[in-house]
């Protein structure tokens, strides 16, 4: 994917841009919904600390997991299956550069999405009881999880194609099952648990969940490369020399 293609795909397409706007609006609504309305005295009296920051972070994470999976599966493209299939079977474009390009532009687009949501997290800092280190940690965790979901979507697209609802079901379980497993089995690697613990202020700033998600994203990209290589090989067997003609 060239720079021009990437910019066009993520910053000129109307559906993609509206998705960003919906994301910002959803985060704004979430912040408004959980903004502390009682007095400080009541909060201290009941010992019930405001969960504003945690709730906004979780909303951000869930939204970006959803959007990341859909962006990865190229749901917002006009005819994603045709594009990917054509690229793999009809062109000699190196598959590694194809997957790497989507990975890099997915990473850059995730950064843009994080930047869009960051003002809400910053606004929730004080009432949520966190500081800048926690905000940066939350953005890193959310970004890595979103990138992993995006690669998951790409892998599902390569595996199943645009067949719905088979791809959506596969994608749903592929995103939620690891998250649930980490939440219950390996809490230290769970993005949700890490975000929930940020506001507790126990002093431990761990980026383990972000690292795990980034590794998962790279692994999924490698899997996608393998799947696409298989698809190209099958296409070559069916129509020898197709790629060379191009």
């Amino acid at each position, binding site marked *: 994917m060239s720079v021009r293609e990437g910019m066009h795909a993520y910053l000129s397409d109307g559906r993609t841009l509206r998705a960003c706007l919906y994301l910002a609006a959803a985060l704004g609504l979430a912040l408004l919904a959980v903004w502390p309305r009682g007095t400080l005295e009541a909060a201290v*009296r009941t010992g019930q600390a405001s969960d504003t920051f945690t709730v906004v972070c979780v909303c951000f994470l869930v939204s970006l997991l959803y959007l990341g999976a859909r962006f990865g599966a190229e749901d917002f493209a006009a005819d994603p299956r045709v594009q990917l299939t054509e690229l793999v079977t009809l062109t000699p474009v190196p598959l590694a550069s194809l997957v790497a390009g989507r990975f890099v532009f997915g990473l850059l687009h995730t950064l843009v999405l994080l930047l869009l949501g960051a003002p809400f997290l910053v606004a929730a800092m004080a009432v949520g009881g966190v500081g800048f280190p926690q905000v940066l940690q939350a953005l890193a965790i959310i970004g890595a999880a979103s990138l992993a979901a995006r690669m998951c979507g790409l892998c599902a697209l390569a595996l199943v194609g645009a067949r719905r609802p088979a791809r959506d079901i596969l994608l749903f379980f592929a995103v939620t099952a690891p998250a649930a497993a980490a939440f219950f089995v390996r809490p230290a690697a769970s993005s949700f648990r890490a975000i929930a613990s940020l506001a507790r202020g126990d002093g431990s700033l761990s980026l383990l969940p972000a690292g795990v998600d980034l590794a998962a994203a790279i692994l999924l990209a490698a899997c996608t490369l393998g799947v696409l290589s298989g698809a190209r090989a099958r296409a070559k067997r069916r129509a020898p020399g197709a790629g060379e003609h191009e």
Partner: protein
Amino acid sequence: MGPRRFLACSALALFLVAPAAPPALSAQEKSLVRCDALVGFNGTAREGRFAPVILSVENPGARMKARISLTVTWGSLRGVPPGWTITREAVLDAGSTRRFPFVIPLPRDVRTLQAAVTSQGTEVGSLRVELQPLSTASRIVAGISSDLSLDSISALGGSAGSLRVVYPRVDDLPQAWAGYDGVDAVIVHDTYFQQLRADQVDALERWVVTGGVLVFTGGAAALQHEPAGFGRLLPVRVTGLTQRSGVPVAVGGGFLRRMPGRLQLAQSLPVQGTVLASEGDLPVMVRHRLGRGSVWFLAFDPTTASVAAWDGWLSMWRNILDSDRVPALGAADLPALPMEDPWIAGLFAASPIAFPSVPALLVFIGAYLALLVPLLVGGPGRGMRARARLLLLVVVSVCAGLAGWAVFNRLLFHPGLQTIDVARVEARSGDGLAFVTEKIGAFSASARHVEVRLGSSDPVLEAAGWRARPDLPLSEPHLSLTRAGARTLVRGIDVPRLAARVVVFQDVVRFDVSVRVRATGSGLEASVSNGNGKALRGCYILVSGRAYPLGDVAAGASVQRTFAASDGLENPPGTSARSAADGAMFRDADSRRAAIFRILDEGAGQGAGPTRLVAWMDGPALPISFTGARPTGNRPGLALVSVEAAQ
């Protein structure tokens, strides 16, 4: 030699040589310095009070710079137990023995005292003391005497609980007033011609200001008091000795009884206080009230056989030792939740700190989305190039982030530590000293570690425990106090997220206010002189349940006013039916002062008490600062001053 044979020989050699090898050094033998600790008074300390500790460190080796720490723990065995760790730096000269005084809290479930001396990061000496056997529930009277002549006072315990008389050496007397916290009274008989250091006398004086009872006995030993350094505490000036028969003695309730037999009396001239009993112009019993406590002088020696056998002896001592001193340890109540503490609750109610409003948030979200919509609605048809769109998105997001940080983290709400403090300053006119109890509530929107800097080398402080929720167990802090010169740094008062901590400080400070009130035929004349650096605001003279307004008295100023009886407000604060007068009392004051007055004066019932001046003083009363706390704008400090008028 084959390998098997070699191994067998080696094992045999090891077996034979091993018993001759030197054993591993024990911890005590590894120590380069020797430590010894004297806890309480001669090894006796009252539980539930502060207690003095003298740590003796003997350094037989070379000169070294050392860090000396004392740790006392109590309560739970799990995790870091609540307690205190006091640390100070010292230089241990070669071949010297130095004594380091400390004051430690001794709660009822206290366990151990651990002393450690480290030099260059290596522990060179340590000591562990079990505190349970040393602490007692009995009342304690400290007798400064060269012989055990005051033991008969233990009969005063009676049904109210046992009383023990301890005899500390003059050298071992505390150098901080809190060291006397566990003592009901100090009776000075004789010092065996030893002289007290100035800091020891100062500590004794300050302890009396907090409510202690100090008794100087007479007879021949009274001639030692002034040379021993007690001069400025004595209510009389001892001039010699004399013999008298049937001397009168005050036994309480305003009654005097004559003591049979001939006694040797200290001849003296009254310097301060009230002569309660005299034989002609010879003072027999003198009481000088100092702060909340009192200093007594008995012209006779109560340890003589004839006095001890007198049937009024018990009544006399009960009259003298009757004290309303409130112990320093335990001043911080342990409410189930910080907001149940009336001081904190009242201050929060009047605090200007609040969450940012929802309309402010709506404006922020609306403005941000309004800027995003033109950038994100519409595709290439809108004519905006992708790079320009990206640049604008970045600029808008960064600006919105900065605005959100400035508005919601600085202007409207601050995540940093906020402190609110209230102090009660109690003094008597002309004493020059005041007993200050300062209660500080610290809270923060985010969990944070707090450091407190005190301008005192022997702080008396207590941090109340806290519960995250009512159903969770109480968390008590482990305080770390580092002494450096006349300053102390306190760590360990951690403030959980959106929670409050209560810390209580007590100290005796210089306070120069004199109040004179004289009744006239038609009213009263009052004069107030404020020799402090801070103005006294909203002053009132409280006389017999009526309050006479004086207004403000500036720093260094004097005010003199004459009042008619009708000028007094009825039912002023401090009386049971004061609500009617609250409006008038605080008509020139803000609601915060009124709220705090109600809290501080709750149940005081002092309306008909002694004539006194009641006033307000801004700012913290004690030199205390919190790291990370916002400047005075968000540190509402207010001290209620109560000065008993001169008699």
